[in-house]
């Protein structure tokens, strides 16, 4: 990663719900090819940051660019894995169909997915080990399997930057390992992966880049340089004296 390009740039971003700021003047540069964790306490604005970058939420100030262009012009480069709880898993559809939804962006309005899209979706299912479940109704999948379906749906977009909102929430150990292996493979392919993450213990093991967030940005940089008690204490507000293995 020598002198790499900036994949995502956030300038002076402020986001508020009902005039109460949840993100305050965030400046952030995410270099291309990193596997980055966003950590911070509940209500720190982690999901809000991702949603604002992706244009789902409108900021009251500031700007975001993806490879130097506004998000609207760079949609094809970005894939998003929302929190698993954000959708109704009783929706009448199958695993394969959900993964196919990842191809809709490249199709644009009106045009229907065809054989090419189906093939891409099947390949993505294969990658996450869910091919045997392709015709299963999504409510018949376990939590870990649902998360893998969401991951496959992002993979099928074949993007350059992946945003994931708590992909390890409520999944079993097997799925967690499967997911992190896929994320590491993405980084190897020089993709940028940004993950909202909760488990501080696994940060040094899984990620090479980290952003500490608590309404304001506390720190961002390589895990080996900045993942320390000082930043943890600043972010979580308590004296954070757990020595985490690096």
């Amino acid at each position: 990663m020598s002198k790499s390009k900036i994949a995502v740039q956030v300038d002076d971003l402020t986001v508020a719900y009902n005039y109460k700021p949840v993100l305050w003047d965030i400046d952030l540069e995410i270099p291309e090819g990193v596997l980055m964790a966003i950590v911070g306490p509940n209500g720190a604005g982690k999901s809000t940051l991702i949603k604002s970058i992706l244009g789902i939420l409108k900021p009251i100030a500031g700007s975001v660019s993806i490879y130097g262009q506004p998000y609207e012009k760079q949609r094809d480069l970005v894939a998003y894995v929302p929190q698993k709880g954000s959708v109704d898993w009783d929706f009448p559809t199958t695993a394969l169909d959900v993964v196919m939804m990842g191809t809709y962006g490249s199709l644009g309005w009106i045009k229907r997915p065809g054989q090419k899209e189906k093939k891409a979706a099947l390949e993505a299912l294969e990658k996450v080990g869910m091919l045997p479940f392709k015709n299963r109704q999504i409510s018949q999948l376990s939590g870990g399997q649902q998360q893998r379906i969401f991951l496959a749906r992002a993979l099928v977009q074949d993007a350059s930057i992946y945003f994931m909102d708590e992909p390890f929430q409520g999944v079993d150990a097997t799925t967690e390992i499967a997911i992190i292996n896929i994320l590491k493979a993405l980084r190897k392919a020089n993709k940028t992966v940004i993950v909202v993450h909760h488990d501080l213990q696994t940060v040094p093991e899984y990620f090479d880049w980290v952003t500490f967030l608590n309404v304001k940005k506390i720190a961002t940089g390589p895990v080996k340089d900045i993942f320390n008690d000082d930043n943890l204490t600043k972010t979580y507000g308590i004296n954070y004296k757990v020595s985490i293995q690096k």
Partner: protein
Amino acid sequence: MSSAQIEIQLIASLVAIACAIPGTFLVLRKMAMISDAISHSILPGLVVGFFITENLNSPLLIVLAALTGVITVVLVEQIQKTGLVKEDTAIGLVFPALFSIGVILIAKNANDVHLDVDAVLLGELAFTPFDRLLISGVDIGPKSLWIIGFILLITVALLFAFFKELKLSTFDAGLAATLGFSPAVIHYGLMTVSSITTVGAFEAVGAILVVALMIAPAATAYLLTTDLKKMLLLSIIFGVFSAISGYWLAHWLDASIAGSITTMLGVLFFVVYLFAPSKGVIAVMYREKQQKIEVSLLTFLLHLKNHTEESERHVNHLNEHINWQKVRSKTVLELAQKNNMIAINNHIVSLTKKGDEFTTLAIDYIMTNEDAQIEDMKDDFFLFRG
């Protein structure tokens, strides 16, 4: 059948189809009550339109009424956005207010015309064949038939064009937004179609039946399928079935057509609710009973596997030891024997090879939750069907 009878059934069926399509998406978006709100609050739009055009079949009337429908949705959302009241409360505040404006307008100004509150609530399906559409003096059928036919055509065309977008934004609005399919555009598109359909169906079947035709067929179909396309198709079939059977029920009882169609919708839902193969009440009860027996069987087999000493495996001992009633022990014992999982010699129960393998596999599955290991057992055991 007279031609009037055929025309009534045709109008009712087209209304049913036109309602079932947006209705399916409203049900999936958990917005069923919005259709109730729209159906009532379009009244002031209809009345104002009538004052302007003095013609109940004017397109302007439909446009104005549909606009009131969309305004209703906007008002509900704005009130909800304040965070002071929940969505259902907001709905309950908005539509009675708009509806009552309509009622007052009628009472003040339109007492002498054919626009009365009864007709608005219950419709006049039986009279629809009398209101003909004449083009240069030639009778080309009932006006209602043409209006609803035209609306249905637009609805079907929109459904085919935007099926993908509707599905995506209904399932995952966040992803739709990031992929560039504005959920707001799709949302208001659906609301506009729902409003127009409501207006078009309104005169024929009334405000109450419109709601039933939107929600009941979709809710019934939801219990029967796990595929969105099949759900749409089933909703349409249920809607048309209720429309036609309801018409004949009304004919036979000499009662209101609208009321009879709604009754058929209710009966249909109730039957499916009871007998649907996997989501129906009876199927669920049966499955729970099977699961209970299977858990007992597994407990029993596990006990046998864990205890090699004969005293623990004596028939009489098992009864008191696992602490089951005699009947339950007997059922489980017979089930295990029937499946060749146990052998009984001199009142001592032991696992057969098959029983032993099954127990190992089942325990393994329960511990690891790895689906692949259990695929072939699913056909025989409810317990593992998730």
